[in-house]
């Protein structure tokens, strides 16, 4: 724990990300106003005691929209990270432990997926199944798979050469069990760091997909969708764009700080180099 406290950027990032997450979670049970309550009479209000961040062109409460939008963004990004880890990490570990043809196949597959950015995948899915936040999740999730496959493979490659893996083989342990018992726990810290970074990328991607109308659809909301709705009035009412825009910037910055801080705090190589000096 002291190790984490020693990294101020990590603490700032984690606190920021957690604060936004809490804000989003709160929106599930309570928002200042219902987000689908349209009241043209009170539209374009500035920030006030009643409407903390003002109201938009349909008279909806901006603070409520930001809260609900933050939740959508986190949810989409988190499920996408989960999909990426769930498929990518086993693929990467399989590549290391079986090697040969399996490794070739995994690497070519991840090259193939890398060739399609999330937007292209999302357009493909939308033409097939129509727009919606599920499609955004699938598209970002597919984009995450090769990232986690590569990180898992890179981390496990160096560990698979160590003697304890050979010792496990000597006891007749199968490949899958070695991957589960000996490789996975030792690359967990790498995966956590990568997961944090993919979270922030996922939130950006979700905002991007919603902005081009391939993600979340009204009456639900997301930060990207808010930007899309506000873009036509940017010159007249810049405030409507600034609020969701700065929310995205703050969340992504917090997650990136947390990811970089985690990397510094748990990177085994950094710690090792220090102890080598004493030898």
């Amino acid at each position: 724990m002291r190790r984490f406290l020693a990294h101020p950027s990590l603490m700032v990032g984690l606190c920021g990300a957690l604060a936004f997450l809490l804000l989003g979670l709160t929106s599930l049970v309570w928002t200042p106003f219902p987000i689908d309550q349209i009241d043209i009479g009170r539209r374009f209000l500035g920030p006030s005691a009643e409407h903390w961040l003002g109201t938009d062109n349909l008279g909806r409460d901006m603070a409520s929209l930001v809260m609900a939008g933050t939740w959508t963004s986190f949810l989409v990004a988190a499920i996408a990270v989960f999909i990426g880890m769930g498929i990518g990490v086993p693929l990467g570990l399989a590549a290391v432990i079986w090697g040969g043809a399996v490794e070739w196949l995994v690497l070519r597959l991840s090259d193939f997926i890398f060739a399609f950015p999330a937007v292209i995948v999302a357009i493909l899915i939308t033409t097939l199944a129509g727009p919606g936040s599920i499609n955004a999740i699938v598209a970002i999730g597919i984009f995450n798979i090769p990232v986690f496959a590569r990180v898992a493979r890179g981390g496990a490659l160096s560990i698979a050469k160590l003697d304890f893996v050979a010792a496990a083989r000597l006891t007749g342990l199968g490949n899958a069990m070695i991957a589960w018992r000996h490789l996975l726990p030792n690359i967990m810290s790498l995966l956590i760091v990568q997961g944090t970074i993919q979270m922030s990328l996922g939130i950006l991607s979700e905002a991007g997909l919603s902005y081009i109308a391939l993600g979340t659809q009204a009456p639900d909301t997301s930060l990207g969708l808010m930007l899309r709705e506000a873009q036509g009035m940017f010159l007249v009412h810049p405030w409507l764009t600034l609020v969701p825009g700065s929310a995205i910037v703050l969340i992504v910055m917090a997650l990136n700080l947390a990811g970089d801080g985690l990397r510094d705090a748990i990177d085994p190589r950094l710690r090792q180099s220090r102890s080598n000096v004493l030898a």
Partner: protein
Amino acid sequence: MSLLDVSNLSVRFGPLEVVSGVAFSVGRSERFGIVGESGSGKTVTALAIAGLLPEGATATGTINLDGQPLPRQEHEMARLRGRRIGMVFQEPMTALNPLMRVGRQINEVIQLNSREATPLPAVEGLLAEVGLAPEHAARYPHQLSGGQRQRVMIAIALAGQPDLLIADEPTSALDLITQAKVLDLIADICERRQMALLFISHDLKAVARLCSRVAVMHAGKLVESGTTGAVFASPRQNYTRKLVAASRFAPRSQQRSGKGTPLLDVAEVTRDYRQGGFLMWDGRPLRAVDTVQFTIAEGECLALVGPSGCGKTTLAKIVVGLDRATSGFMRLRGVTYHGSDLPQELRRDLSLVFQDPFGSFNPRLTIKDSLGEPLRLEPHLPPEGRHARVVEVVEAVGLGQAMLDRYPHEFSGGQRQRLAIARALVTRPRLLVLDEPVSALDVSVRGEVLALLARLQAQFGLTYLIISHDLDMVAAMADRVLVMEAGRIVEEGQPEQIFAAPQHPMTRALVGARLPDLEASA
């Protein structure tokens, strides 16, 4: 006046003092050795003298070179390092730039240290001085052998024509024969150039071979110093006495009588590796093990010796079932196998102790889980039986039950090697394959681990196959020795007979490279 004067040198990393109050001096053209175990602060002392301490370290005390204190500015210190102090590091592969031809790397140092008054040394001259041919200048580091790379490092250190050469474990990454050659080379060069040498090593014999005066370091302090003969022949401090005693292996007391029944037969085992993947038809396969044939009898201790890269580790992997023989087979208790097809029921009769005690345990598992892992080979054992087995082996290697819930990083290298032996014993195997079981350990714990192995052999009636390049250890442990070169077994016999009258040129080279015992040099 002495060339180098170190007085009251202390180095701290934050609150941790790794070197405290060290004082010694090195005269002109004197060869001075510092011995100590890992963590004793000997490398940090050398780095402090060269002004190369890592960030976060603070040094106090005075270091005088030729009566002048070392400059504080990095720029002047860099000039001094080039011209007055040459350094040779432990691992020549990482100390050389992998993307530069070695000739250019040597030339770079020559250019940086050019002085108006003295003529520049030529790259060819330096290469010849360290025993390399002029055409080696055009090679990249990976195209040279370990010994050749270390020679290049020495050439670079000599390029500035220094008065003092600091050599930090220059031979510990090399095999026995190369080590002897490099030590001779360093001795020759110091003699010829009248250059002072500060030689840092954990190997008492290497220091005794090379240095006229020696200092012993322990836990950051200088324990004892004096002429090499006096310190090693009649050590005054307890720690030095322990160190000197540990560097000698007591010859085994009893000779086991007669041969037991054969336990393992190795019949014409060959292992080929395909080379250079891309063009399959291009190049013939690399033969790592070449029609090797031998038998190990029940209760015997057989040693396999040879230079690095001779195929001894590959052979061990095939025997224990980690790799597969290309042709030939092994027979264990009447069952024939070829390597990785070793049947599950037989796996518990064989086990392997690895060389590196730091890589042989999963850092995320408790010792109890790691030790218990091989017990899955005995599915009939009830849970309480498993626990009893783990406790039994951990006590057999001289450690307590209380240590079972700890994690590997809480143990020292020697303790980990004991635990690795315990893990190998937990299935009550018949044959234990030991791959360089003590070469990664400090001198003072080597003796303990070897005594433990000898005791366990008597206690459990074990059969050992020891793989090593350390002839002294082999002489102390083995009943029979096989000498291996380039995948083939070239000589076989009792240790006394082989070391007294080696027949094959490789055996002669190995025996010749053996450093003399401390008594002899005293």
